[in-house]
Structure formats: C-alpha cells, structure tokens
C-alpha cells in the first residue's frame, strides 16, 4: 500500500520473523486472536454482566477455520515455516 512508503520509509521486507513477533503470529493463526482466553476470564466477565465468552472467534470456532482457509488461499504455508 502506498501510504506504507510515506509512513515507514525505512521499512524493509521481512526475511525472518523476529522472535518477539513469533508468539503473536502463532496465536493469531491458531486462535484468530492474539491473547489467550481462559475460563477464569469467562467467569470474571460473567460477574460484570457480560457474555462469558465474547461473541468473536473465541465463541464461533468456524472463524478459526475460515482464517485457516484464507491462509491457504493466500499461499502462506511456506511463510508459516519461518515462524
């Protein structure tokens, strides 16, 4: 995208995924979200009147399958091995 060059003129193509990024990318590809979601969180949410599991990919697991399908379509299988 064009704005990329204006905003980040020194950015270079990624050759290797930095270690500090790897965990976040693994989590994104595995659960479609960055943080973990625990039973403890679900209990705490319920205590303040929220749905225990948020109505996102944490609740609707087909979203994770859709993301897997998209990564295949894009051809990320090779790049995933860099993580």
């Amino acid at each position, binding site marked *: *995208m064009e*704005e*990329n060059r204006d*905003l980040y003129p020194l950015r270079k193509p*990624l050759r290797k*995924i*930095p270690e*500090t*990024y790897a965990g*976040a*990318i693994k989590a*994104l590809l595995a659960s*479609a*979200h*960055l*943080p*973990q*979601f625990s039973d403890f*969180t679900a209990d*705490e*949410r319920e*205590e*303040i*009147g*929220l749905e225990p599991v*948020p*109505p*996102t*990919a*944490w*609740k*609707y697991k*087909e*979203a*994770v399958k*859709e*993301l897997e*399908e*998209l*990564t295949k*379509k*894009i051809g*990320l299988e090779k*790049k995933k091995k860099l993580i």
Partner: protein
Amino acid sequence: MEKKFAFFLGCTIPASQFHVEAATRKAFEKLGIELLDMEGATCCSDPEISRQFDENLWLHIAARNISIAEKLNANIMTVCNGCFDTLNKVNESLKADEKLKNEINRDLEAIGKEYKGTVKVLHAIEVLHDEIGLDTISKAVVKPLKNLRVALQPGCRLYHDDEKKLVEKFTALVKALGAQIIDYPLIRLCCGVPALYVDAEFSLMERTKKKLESVQSVNVDCIVTFCPACYDRLEKGQLDLRSRGINFSIPILNYFELLALALDIDPDDFGIYLHRIPADGVVEKIEEETG
C-alpha cells in the same frame, strides 16, 4: 433505539480489559444507542505484527471482519486505536482500489464472505462526538467530574490523520463530562508498546517511565485514554517499575469508564475493581463532588 453500530471488540478489550467492554455497553444503553455483536469477528488484524508478517493476510482478515458488519448493515465502531487504524485503512484502500477488492473477494468467496465497501469504520471518538454529540452527552451527565484532574493519553495513532481531528474531539469529550484536563509536557511521547517488541528495557525506562514522570509532575487523579495498548502499558509499566523500587500510583482509565461514572452507572457493575492500579480515589473524588 435510533442509532446502531456494529461493535468491533478486538482482542485486548474482551480478554483483559473487559470492564471497558462492560462500561461501553452500559453507557451506550443509557444513551439509547444499540451495539450489535459482530459474531465470529477475529483480531483486526493488528497493524504492527501481522501486517509486518504478511500484508496480504492483514488485508484479508480486515476485509473479512468488515464483511461481518456489512451483513448487519451497520457502521463499525471500535474503541481500540489499533483496530481503528487497521480497519479504517483497509476499508479506505479497498473502496479506492477495485482490482485489490476483487482479488480479496475471490479468496473470501471460498469462506462464504464478500467485502462490498458499504460501511464506514468509526473510532468510538467519532461515534461519541459526531454521531451522538457533545450536547447529548453533557445533558446525560448525572455526576459532573468537576473535581477530577485528568491527563490525556491520546496514543500515537490518533495523531496519524490530521483531518479527522481525533485528538481535538477526544479533548472535547472529556470536557463534556466536566473534568479538568491538565496539560503535561510529554503528551506526544509514545507509551512504549511498539518498542517493547524490540527492547523491553528501553520501552520501560525511556518511554513508559518518562511518560509517567511527566504526568506525575502535574499532579493528576488519573490518565484517561481510549487505546487499550496504552492503557495496558501504562498500568503494567507501573507494576514493573515498582519491582525496581520506582513507585508510581496513577490510575489508568478508559474514557468509557469515566463516561459510565458520569452517567451514574455503579462502578462495581462494570468492574472498576479489576484495575491493577486501583481507581478508588477517582470514584471517591466524584462522589465527594456530587454527594
């Protein structure tokens, strides 16, 4: 209810700042605004790590998320600066580039989705300021925050788009609750989140600590922000610094928590007790003023 928005939750708010989600939902209910759940939404995806990993994946994930709101026939509202950055940029790019849109849609078709480009992506600031209005918010305030001295933390991304005037609108929204905005020297300094992935020590000592020192120098009751990343960094950073004998005790509140308090929503009902730097002093000060 007259107005409705597709509520994009993102990752951090529903998983670790869910008191902000509760405050947002309860405040909007009081203001008569309907928030629609975006079922099956994922990470936006985040504008730093996943975009750096693969820009095409970043575009696809954002387009998929926007398509969920399109099905609901509602503009997207997000509280998170990062989610706004991603979803807004992708939405504008795809609306302007038919070829790119068609390429993405060829892949989305395989999962039964389609990006049409029929909705807007709005930061919560725009929803509150432009769609609901300062006047409506001011009139809905039951407990004005007149006694409260607050420091703003807009976060870097709010400065990216001058035309949207998000920082000015954020300032006006805090004033609409009656709070006193206290200027501090390093308002433009980053909270330290991006640097955290490169050099944790630099992030803590050269960004978070310096920011907190600057805020502390002007003696405020709390820092108010919309950005969940700034919130998390400035709160956790204080705990990290305490373990080194450097003591700060500045509560970090999301704007929606201040709004909920001003609308007289019971703080325990939205979970203000979940703050790691307790916000009891903020609640007490509001109660002192209003009795």
